[in-house]
C-alpha cells in the first residue's frame, strides 16, 4: 500500500445557495428549517461555469506554481446544458451542424467532458497533465485520490482537483423517474426520510507533497490525506449492496493505508443521501467497522446531493471540521431510525478531532473512503 500522506491546501467550495466553503460550514452548524429540494438555474450552462470558476479561483496556486500544476476535473456529466444542446441538435439534423459548431467554438460542446477540462485548464493556465475522472457520485473523492497518487508518484508536483456538477433538468427528471427525490425535505437517517434533495455545487482543492508546498501563514493548520480506498459492490446498477460489503472494503483499505485503527477515527462524515437503501447500507458499514461508535454526521440535508461534486465538497468540509475541532449536526435529522448509533443532531459537538473518515457511494455500486488527518501543530 502507498504510505505517503499528501497535503490538502486551499480548499474551496460553493453551491447554488452558498457562495463559499465558510458559508456552507456556518450554515451547517445551524441548519435552516427548510431547504429547497432542487436548485433553480435560469441558465444551467452559466451556472456550471460560474460554480467551477469560483471554486477553482479560490484554490489556485500562485502563478509560478501553475506551470507544472496538474488538473483533474471530477464530474458525472460536466457541462450538462451543453450536452443537452448537442443531443437536441443531433436529433435535429437540419440545424445540428451549426449547433455543434457553435458549441465547439465556445469550448462547451459535448466533445464533451474533455472540452470542459481543456477550457478550465487553459483559462487558469494549469500546464501539468490534465484529465477527467467520472465515477458517478464518488467522482469527487476519486479525483482527490487520483491527485494524491499523481503527486505521490511524481507525475506532477501539485495537482488542482475540481469537482463540479449541476442538478439541472436532465438530472432532476432522471432522479424523479427513479422516485428517489423526497417530497418534503432531505432527512438522512431519520425515521421520516423519504428521499434525497438535489444540489448544484463545485469544490476544489490543491493537492501537493510536503516538500512542494509553498510557505503558509504561521499557525495555519494543515490537513493531510492519509489514506484512501475504492471498491465496487458488483451487485446492482442503482442500489447498494445491502450488506455494505463494498463500502466496508473501501473503508478498511483507507484505514490500512493511513495506518489507523478504527478506534482512532474521531468522527465520520457519511454520504447520507436520505434514501432508505443508502442510509441502511451505511449504518450496516458503521456497525461493522466501529465498536466505539464515533460521532456520525452528514450534510446533504443542507445542500442536497451535489452528485459528482459531493465527495470533494464534503472532504473540504471534513477538513474544516478538523481545523475548527467541531462536528456539525446531521442537517434534517430529528428522530434517528437507528438510535443505537452516535448521530450528531440538533447542535454541533465540540470535541478534539485528529482523524476523520469521509465516505461516498454511487451508481454502479461504487464506494470510496478517505482518511483525513490534522497536523499536530494545527490542533487547537
Amino acid at each position, binding site marked *: *500500500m*502507498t504510505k505517503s500522506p499528501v497535503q490538502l491546501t486551499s480548499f474551496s467550495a460553493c453551491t447554488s445557495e452558498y457562495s463559499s466553503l465558510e458559508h456552507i460550514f456556518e450554515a451547517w452548524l445551524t441548519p435552516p428549517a427548510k431547504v429547497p429540494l432542487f436548485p433553480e438555474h435560469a441558465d444551467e450552462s452559466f451556472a456550471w461555469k460560474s460554480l467551477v470558476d469560483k471554486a477553482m479561483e479560490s484554490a489556485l496556486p500562485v502563478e509560478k506554481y501553475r506551470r507544472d500544476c496538474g488538473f483533474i476535473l471530477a464530474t*458525472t*456529466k460536466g457541462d450538462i446544458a451543453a*450536452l443537452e444542446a448537442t*443531443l437536441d*441538435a*443531433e*436529433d435535429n439534423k437540419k440545424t445540428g*451542424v451549426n449547433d*455543434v459548431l457553435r458549441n*465547439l467554438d465556445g469550448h462547451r460542446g*459535448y*466533445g*464533451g*467532458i*474533455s472540452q470542459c*477540462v*481543456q477550457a478550465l*485548464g*487553459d483559462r487558469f493556465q494549469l*500546464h501539468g*497533465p*490534465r*484529465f*477527467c*475522472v*467520472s*465515477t*458517478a457520485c464518488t467522482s469527487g473523492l*476519486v479525483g482527490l485520490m*487520483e491527485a494524491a*497518487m*499523481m503527486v505521490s508518484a511524481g*507525475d*506532477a508536483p501539485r495537482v488542482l482537483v475540481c469537482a463540479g456538477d449541476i442538478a439541472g433538468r*436532465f438530472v432532476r*427528471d*432522471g*432522479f*424523479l*423517474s*427513479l*422516485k428517489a427525490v423526497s417530497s418534503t425535505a432531505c432527512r438522512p437517517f431519520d425515521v421520516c426520510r423519504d428521499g434525497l434533495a438535489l444540489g448544484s455545487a463545485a469544490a476544489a482543492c490543491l493537492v501537493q507533497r510536503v516538500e512542494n508546498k509553498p510557505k503558509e501563514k504561521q499557525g495555519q493548520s494543515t490537513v493531510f490525506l492519509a489514506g484512501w480506498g*475504492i*471498491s*465496487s*459492490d*458488483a451487485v446492482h*446498477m*442503482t442500489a447498494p449492496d445491502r450488506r455494505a*460489503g*463494498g463500502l466496508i472494503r473501501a473503508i478498511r*483499505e483507507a484505514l490500512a*493505508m493511513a495506518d489507523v485503527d478504527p478506534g482512532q477515527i474521531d468522527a465520520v462524515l457519511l454520504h447520507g443521501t436520505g434514501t432508505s437503501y443508502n442510509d441502511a447500507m451505511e449504518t450496516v458499514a458503521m456497525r461493522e467497522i466501529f465498536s466505539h461508535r464515533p460521532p456520525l454526521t452528514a450534510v446533504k440535508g443542507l445542500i442536497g446531493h451535489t452528485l459528482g461534486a459531493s465527495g470533494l465538497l464534503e472532504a473540504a468540509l471534513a477538513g474544516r471540521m478538523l481545523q475548527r475541532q467541531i462536528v456539525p449536526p446531521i442537517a434534517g435529522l430529528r428522530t434517528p431510525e437507528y438510535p443505537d448509533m452516535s448521530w450528531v443532531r440538533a447542535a454541533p459537538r465540540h470535541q478534539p478531532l485528529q482523524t476523520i473518515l469521509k465516505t461516498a457511494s*454511487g*451508481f*454502479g*455500486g*461504487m464506494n470510496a473512503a478517505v482518511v483525513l488527518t490534522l497536523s499536530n501543530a494545527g490542533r487547537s
Partner: protein
Amino acid sequence: MEDDIFVFRWIAQDGSDKNVVGGMGTQPVEKIPPPLPCRTGVAERPAGPLGEQARRLAGLILRNVPAEDKQAMAVFLGTMMGAWEEDRIFQRSRKSGAGKYCSPAAFSRTLPSTVAAELAIEFGMQGPLLVFTAGAASGPLAMIRATRWIQSGNISLALAGALDWSYPGIRRRMTGAISNDSRTLLCLIGRRSALPRIHPVIQIKQGRLKYSPDENSHSMDTSIAPLADAFRRACAQRVHIQGKSGIGTVCQMILEPV
C-alpha cells in the same frame, strides 16, 4: 518496479460487430463469440451496443481467470464520449414524455462509468472502478493510471481499456483524424505474479503523462485504433506509444514483447 507490469491478454474490436481489429494476446481472433445469455429485462440490458461488446470481449479475456482473482480485480476504462448513446435514449424519453415520464432504466445508464460498473457486476469484480476522459488520449490514459495503481501496490490486477461511440456531429465537423467506427479495446494488465498460470504477451516498460500545448487543438480521434495497432506490434517488437489528445495531455508508454 515499472518493469514488473505486464499485459496478459488483450483484444480489440470495432463497432460494426463484424471486424476484429485486434487479437487475443498474440493470436488473431477470427470470430467473436456470440453474445452472453441475453438479458431480456429492459432494466438489465447492457448500456448500448458497446456495452454489450465490452461484455463479450471481457468474457474472452477473463476466461480461465480464477474467481478469486476476478473478485479483487480493478476496472480502468477510458472514454471520450462517455454514455453518448444512452444520453440520447434518455433525452428522447424526456422529450416524448414532456419531462414527466422519463425512463429510469435509461437514466441509470447515462453515466460515463456505466459500462465499467456493468462489467464489474457481470464478472464479480469488486476492486476499484475508474473511468477517465482525456479526449483522444483517454485509452492510453486509462492504461497508465492502471499501471500507476498497480505500482502503488493498491491492486495487482486490472481490466483496462477504452471504448467510444462514433459521434456523427463531431465527424461532420472534423476531418482527417476521425475514426468512423466505435471501438472497444480491453486488456488484462498486472504483475506477473498475479496470474502465474497465464503467460503475459507484452511488458509495460514505462508510462507517463505530460502536458504539451502543441497538442492543444480541436483535433479529435477515437484513440482506440492506434492503441490496438500498438498492442499488435508490441507483441513482436518494442513500441513507443504517444497518445495525444485535443486537451493538451500526452500519454507516453513503452511496450515490449515478452
